[in-house]
């Protein structure tokens, strides 16, 4: 090439013309080498690799983060598995046996201990709700000195210094407490008080039974509370004693009462129960005969009865000048006869705080030979040991400034005693006031030192509620705050600081162990007792003297309430009792078993009395009890079955601290504040109590009511109270609905005899069954005869199933969330009959809810359960509309827990339902699953009774029975074969899996028979 070629091709201007000045470095990077490391292919390869690698990495499992970082796993603890610890309930003084269900180191449910000799597996609503109290963030977390947070060292130092000066100066030391059933605490307290020259332990009960003890002192020479044995009684005459609801030991009494009314037994038993009372109590609702008697006439009625029984017994009892009986004489004759026929198996009890009336009750029991049989004075009860006379003395001392140091434990005198405001003033003057309260309340906020006690679930302890049965407390979790057991505080101040565990063990070794003969070694005895939660030991026998007839005086007349005035009855409500659990949202929202009202107290008036006053339900009345007494303003509640001249008001409301519940309701623009005036829940009625004649009295006469014109809507969960439809609707009057069946004892016996011969009618259906139940078919039986309406099941269900609290406003809007409710119906007018019907999802086989759900969020399982799939539910509420039993509950809002600490009480086996989702009773499906898994793990058939639903477990009356309908031998199948079995709304063929057993009243076949449906 080159020069020879005819044409020269130039490639650039420089080549053509070397002088041409082309711009240098036009391309700064060398153009000849590889331009970049990445060519297109390379890029694709790299990108492909990166994407693929990233994808692969993304697909890998995330590093496992252990939710429960047990570095060293505690022995015998498996995360996620529930353990049960036996303990004792201290929510009241009854000391029922507990099984504390612990999950991952925290209690999540309290159950009754089935072996416990007095409670026998039941646990009342208050006991169930104690769990929520444990996780109350308002409980004190450390001691307070002068209202300021302090440390134990500092508090101990200061208190010890003051005690030392007291010891030398001889100032009066008073220890004011409620009944202490713990032998260890009592012993330690004795030791503590011995240090001082002038020291005394004063015991009072806000719900006092002091008159019973005083009466026994008069008649038997021993100040003791006998143990009432309802299980042995076949005729029970109750005089204003709400023994199934709130009186002394309701769980034990309910269990005993139930044992005396066992219709499933062979032969069936049914005790005869007569109740005389001024207001409608829970016990009154169960009575076979109930008489409305004004509070001041209880004594007269007792005298009339005593006169008749004395005549039968041939005892001298002069009743000359006796006022007319409030109860027809013929009835009293009959009752006296029945009591007399059941000598030694009858029981007369009286809840009055009038010693004379209690003496008469003792007289009756003595005449009937009940002492040693149904009234056990040898093995007495150690509950309600309060002595109101002592209390009166102490209050006098306090007023005169004689008391140098006052210790307050377990009571709240400023709140629950009459003249509390005066007491508050007096307390401010005392030189040393120490409170052991768990939280700041009316009294502890006045104390110089607050040394908060543990919650009973956090501490060691014991209780001897009835002589011979000593129960043990064991801690179920580490204390949540820096609290200290009262015994430790007392030990520290007695100069011998010791942990509660050691104190308890030492006391047991020295005092309890010798009272038993079963175990040889203390270690074995201790271990067994801790395992069982109680120990049966030799009772401390009380040596009752012979009956002193000269103590008995008839009550001939009473100061009658003048015309236009009312007699006031102050009563404890199931759940709220004396107000000690007023900070418990579950209990505040628990519908009262009789009135069905939540979140309030109110003035109960009979409909006739209300008509006379011209007031309707919800009208606020002013309640005046004469000059110098507190004036209460309360909404009226119309209570059928109440004596016309009586106004009844519940205690336990208006507690300091209940203003927290203003926050409990969902917040939205038209939400109305959840609580009453002063932001407190209800009104404190305790200022109207009377401490007179050595007794704290719950009744008083001469109370005047005036209408204020204001209204306060009550939050009731039930608005219509009768099975009869309203009179103004049907054309031909009184149509009664057949939801509840009841019969009389003679009819029942006849039916039972007939049923033995009749073959059970096979149920035939026109259509083939929709569902097959190859293995299990779960069902339930509810014995209406056993059910007392005590509502333990309602709270048990709430605790088990994470049911939220919705607040007063939402209840008022009829949006309570309880899965389990107890329907209460009245029938008759004057001679009122009451039935309680627990109602919850009946798990119908032909469930109306299932067909209408558009998204299949509620479906039938092959074990007969009507399942609700929360995360599929879109919330059409069609199912709730179509539920004939109206048991479905909708999450109208996100129900935020007002107290985040209380989330610890949630059951991890269940979800917490979100807003917009329907929920309802599941038959405790989590328990069913657990039992099934356990049975499979052990390779066994599931035993009948292996599953107990929460409601069934808690029921003190064993009214609820869960089981497998596929197993003809199961207890459930047997129970449902009873002629008493009926299904609610059976005629519609919903085929509910819940059978109800007819209520039987022990009375002759009378006109009420027509209600048999």
């Amino acid at each position: 090439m080159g020069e020879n070629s005819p044409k020269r091709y130039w490639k650039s201007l420089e080549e053509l013309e070397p002088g041409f000045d082309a711009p240098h470095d036009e391309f700064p990077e060398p153009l000849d080498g590889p331009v970049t490391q990445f060519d297109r292919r390379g890029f694709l390869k790299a990108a492909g690799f990166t994407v693929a690698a990233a994808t692969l990495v993304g697909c890998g499992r995330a590093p496992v983060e252990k939710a429960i970082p047990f570095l060293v796993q505690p022995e015998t603890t498996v995360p996620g598995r529930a353990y049960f610890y036996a303990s004792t309930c201290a929510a009241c003084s009854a000391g029922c046996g507990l099984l504390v269900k612990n999950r991952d180191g925290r209690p999540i449910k309290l159950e009754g201990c089935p072996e416990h000799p007095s409670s026998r597996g039941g646990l009342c609503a208050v006991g169930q709700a104690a769990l929520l109290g444990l996780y109350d963030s308002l409980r004190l977390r450390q001691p307070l000195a002068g209202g300021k947070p302090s440390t134990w060292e500092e508090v101990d130092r200061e208190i010890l210094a003051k005690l030392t000066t007291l010891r030398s100066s001889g100032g009066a030391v008073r220890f004011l407490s409620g009944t202490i059933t713990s032998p260890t605490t009592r012993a330690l307290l004795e030791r503590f008080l011995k240090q001082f020259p002038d020291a005394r332990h004063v015991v009072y009960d806000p719900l006092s039974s002091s008159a019973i003890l005083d009466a026994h002192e008069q008649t038997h020479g021993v100040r003791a509370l006998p143990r009432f044995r309802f299980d042995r009684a076949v005729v029970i005459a109750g005089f204003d004693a709400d023994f199934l609801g709130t009186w002394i030991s309701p769980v034990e009494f309910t269990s005993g009462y139930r044992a005396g009314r066992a219709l499933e037994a062979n032969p069936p038993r049914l005790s005869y129960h007569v109740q005389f009372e001024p207001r409608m109590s829970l016990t009154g609702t169960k009575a076979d005969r109930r008489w409305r008697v004004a509070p001041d006439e209880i004594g007269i009625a007792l005298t009339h009865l005593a006169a008749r029984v004395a005549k039968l017994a041939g005892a001298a009892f002069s009743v000359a000048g006796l006022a007319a009986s409030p109860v027809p004489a013929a009835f009293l004759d009959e009752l006296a006869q029945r009591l007399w026929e059941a000598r030694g198996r009858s029981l007369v009890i009286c809840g009055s705080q009038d010693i004379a009336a209690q003496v008469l009750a003792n007289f009756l029991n003595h005449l009937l030979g009940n002492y040693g049989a149904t009234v056990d004075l040898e093995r007495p009860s150690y509950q309600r040991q309060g002595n109101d006379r002592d209390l009166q003395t102490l209050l006098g001392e306090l007023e005169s400034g004689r008391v140098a140091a006052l210790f307050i434990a377990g009571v709240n005198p400023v709140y629950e005693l009459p003249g509390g405001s005066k007491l508050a003033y007096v307390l401010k003057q005392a030189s040393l006031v120490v409170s052991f309260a768990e939280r700041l309340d009316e009294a502890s906020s006045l104390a110089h030192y607050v040394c908060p006690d543990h919650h009973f679930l956090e501490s060691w302890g014991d209780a001897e509620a009835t002589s011979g049965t000593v129960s043990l407390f064991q801690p179920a979790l580490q204390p949540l705050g820096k609290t200290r057991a009262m015994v430790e505080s007392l030990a520290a101040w007695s100069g011998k600081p010791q942990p509660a565990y050691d104190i308890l063990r030492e006391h047991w070794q020295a005092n309890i162990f010798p009272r038993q003969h079963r175990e040889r070694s203390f270690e074995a005895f201790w271990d067994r007792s801790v395992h069982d939660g109680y120990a049966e030991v030799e009772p401390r026998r009380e040596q009752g003297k012979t009956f002193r007839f000269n103590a008995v005086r008839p009550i001939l007349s009473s100061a009658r309430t003048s015309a236009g005035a009312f007699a006031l009855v102050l009563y404890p409500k199931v759940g709220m009792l004396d107000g000690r659990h007023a900070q418990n949202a579950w209990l505040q929202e628990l519908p009262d078993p009789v009135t069905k009202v939540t979140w309030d107290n109110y003035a109960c008036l009979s409909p006739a009395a209300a008509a006379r006053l011209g007031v309707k339900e919800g009208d606020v009345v002013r309640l005046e009890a004469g000059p110098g007494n507190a004036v209460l303003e309360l909404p009226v509640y119309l209570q059928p079955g109440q004596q016309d001249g009586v106004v009844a008001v519940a205690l336990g409301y208006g507690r300091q601290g209940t203003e927290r519940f203003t926050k409990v309701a969902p917040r939205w623009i038209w939400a109305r504040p959840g609580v009453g005036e002063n932001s407190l829940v209800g009104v404190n009625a305790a200022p109207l109590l009377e401490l007179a004649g050595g007794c704290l009295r719950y009744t008083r006469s001469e109370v005047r009511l005036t209408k204020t014109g204001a209204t306060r809507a009550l939050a009731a969960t039930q608005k219509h109270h009768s099975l009869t439809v309203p009179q103004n609707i049907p054309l031909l009057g009184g149509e009664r609905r057949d939801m509840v069946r009841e019969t009389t004892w003679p009819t029942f016996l006849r039916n039972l005899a007939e049923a033995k011969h009749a073959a059970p009618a096979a149920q035939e259906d026109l259509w083939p069954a929709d569902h097959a139940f190859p293995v299990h078919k779960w069902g339930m039986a509810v014995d209406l005869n056993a059910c007392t309406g005590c509502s333990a099941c309602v709270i048990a269900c709430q605790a088990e199933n994470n049911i939220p609290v919705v607040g007063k406003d939402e209840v008022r809007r009829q949006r309570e969330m309880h899965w389990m409710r107890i329907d209460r119906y009245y029938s008759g007018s004057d001679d009122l009959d009451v039935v309680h019907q627990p109602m919850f999802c009946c798990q119908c086989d032909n469930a109306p809810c299932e067909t209408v759900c558009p998204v299949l969020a509620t479906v039938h399982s092959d074990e007969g359960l009507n399942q609700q799939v929360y995360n599929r539910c879109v919330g059409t509420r069609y199912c709730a509309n179509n539920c004939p039993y109206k048991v479905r509950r909708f999450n109208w809002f996100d129900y935020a827990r007002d107290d985040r600490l209380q989330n610890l009480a949630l059951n991890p086996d269940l979800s917490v339902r979100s807003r917009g989702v329907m929920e309802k009773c599941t038959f405790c499906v989590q328990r069913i699953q657990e039992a099934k898994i356990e049975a499979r793990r052990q390779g066994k058939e599931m035993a009948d009774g292996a599953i107990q639903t929460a409601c069934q477990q808690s029921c003190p009356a064993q009214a609820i029975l869960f089981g497998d309908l596929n197993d003809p031998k199961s207890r459930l199948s047997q129970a449902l074969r009873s002629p008493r079995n009926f299904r609610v709304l059976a005629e519609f063929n919903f085929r509910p899996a819940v059978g109800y057993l007819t209520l039987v009243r022990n009375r002759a076949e009378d006109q009420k028979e027509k209600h048999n449906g």
Partner: protein
Amino acid sequence: MADLPVVLRPSLIEGNKSLAQVTRDVCGGLEGKPTPLWWAGFLISFSVLIVGIAAVTYEILTGVGTWGVNRTVGWAVPITCFVFWIGIGHAGTLISAILYLLRQRWRTSVNRSAEAMTIFAVICAGIFPVVHLGRPWLAYWLFPYPNTRGTLWVNFRSPLVWDAFAIGTYFTISLLFWYLGLIPDLATVRDVARPGPRQRFAALFSLGWNGSARTWQRYEVVYLLLAGLATPLVVSVHTIVSWDFATAVIPGWHSTIFPPYFVAGAIFSGLAMVLTLMLIARKTMRLEQYITIRHVEVMCKLVIATSGMVALAYATEYFTALYSANPYELFAFLNRARGPFAWTYWTMVSCNVLVPQLLWSKRLRTNTLVVFVISILINVGMWFERFVIIVTSLHRDYLPSSWSTYSPTPIELATLAGSFGLFFTCFLLFVRFLPVIAIAEVKGVLKDGWLKPEARRPVPWVREPAGAEVLTYKSAAEGVQQ
């Protein structure tokens, strides 16, 4: 041929309009500025709509608890509104489809607005089932769509699923039907409108309509087919809505009379609403010559007929309750008339049974003010009919322990008002932007009544001049030429 009986009627359209005049009258309204009356109506409706939107937003954010519903009464005002609006929607399809098939030519003046009303009413109705859900963001779960949740499907036994289908179908057909009827008119608008967005909009949606005989022929076939398809829907939609109640076990709901009863009630309420709207439109849009007193009268007669059907249903319910001897059923009905919600029941009976009887009088039914008031009362009565069915049946059902009461919260009432706001906002926008009278169809009946008998082609089974059809084709062309 000449001796066949021929009925001469007064003209359906008054004022001896020419075809061009019709176009001018209808399209002219769209071109000019809105009247102050329109602005007033629009602003009020829109404000109410905003209130409703606020209420619904708040409700969705906070929870259904902001309503007055409770554990016993799970459905109340919102579902009442749902059934009410679905009912309103019925008259549109009735007038456009059934009356079309029955060759009721008077319908041409009102069918467009009736169809529009149907669309808007169904939109209003459709909102309620969604917002009343606990979790409205999951409303799509009511539809059976292929999903990744395994075999999870909807419950085909649930009337709510049927509802979703029925309303979906109804809405689709109604929308198509309405749109199809609009096409020739949109073409007219396209041709007469000033250049601008409106003209472009009309051009786009008239789908290249050219008014040729072939286009007309196809249009007529499709219209007829759609009318045939829509007719069963008139019956089916409210039948299915009634099954929401009839298949339930609640006394007062569980009743086989519900489907015909609901359909009759729906048509009744829809006719009343059409009357209300017609009377408003003819006054505010100055369409008295198109929507004549004769139209009002015909509608009134239909109202009397359907009112009678509704009254019969009310009576039958009581008879069935008595005859069945089911105490729960009987109680449910007596409770309606004598219970706490008796005032709603008697409002319903007065408005739906007693008040329409006034229309028997010719003097009253030709007085537009009287008819307007009556139509409003019927709307009120029909709203209460649904309220009575839903709330009074639920609030006292089987177990007396769970009996309850119900009162709506302001949020609920705002939602109710908001649905009216939405409806009237939509309707007012419609009369503003689309031809409120079916121009092409009116042109078809323009010459009715004054054509000479010999110019007619009598059809033995329809005593109506069918030659109008021929004129229809021409009229559109004429309209275009104007």
